[in-house]
């Protein structure tokens, strides 16, 4: 399964990752994607999106998805 993963703002800086593509058979959910990419636990206030739509961390992922992790938003 191939998944594009993106990190934004403070999470990009904390993880040292901007975007990456993972090839993994053992990844089922958004939370699994985080664990596959980052050794530290996901901060509790992390927001998650799949294909540019907000989803919970237990959302199932599939081949070709774009998964994003970011902190609380601060626009406006």
């Amino acid at each position: 399964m191939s998944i594009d993963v993106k990190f934004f703002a403070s999470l990009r800086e904390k993880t040292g990752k901007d975007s990456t593509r993972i090839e993994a058979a053992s990844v089922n959910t958004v939370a699994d994607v985080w664990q596959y990419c980052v050794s530290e636990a996901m901060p509790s206030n992390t927001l998650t999106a799949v294909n540019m739509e907000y989803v919970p961390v237990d959302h199932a992922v599939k081949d070709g998805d774009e998964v994003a992790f970011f902190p609380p938003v601060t626009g406006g």
Partner: protein
Amino acid sequence: MTIALYDRPFDPWAVLKQYQQTSIVAGKYGATAVFVGTMRDFNEGDNVRAMTLEHYPGMTEKYLQNLTCEAASKWDILDSLIVHRVGDIKPDEAIVLVVVWSSHRAHAYEANRYLMEQLKSSAPFWKKETLQDNTQRWVEKNTTGDL
């Protein structure tokens, strides 16, 4: 319903005037509700000399488009315009412009407030401030719009 992201300074009043002249049908609207958000030179007790606005290209536009459609389904509005800055910003520059045109003021006011509060709480933008001593910090959360 129009949304736009600008990576350069903009004059919200000029943008509003031009949009209204070119896209809004005269005689049909009785109410125009306008919100302009402007960068302050202070935050949380510190002087702020600059700010960078990061966003999630693609999701930002998708979120704002869906939001304007949602507002149009909830209220009787004729049109709406959202303009948001991204990139490097200085104090006194406009960050966001939200305009709603409606036949009547109640719908214009309520839809405008809804668009702005939803944008603040959910649109994928992030502010990074540069303080007077050149240290930088991420703004961790937005304040609520409650009185």
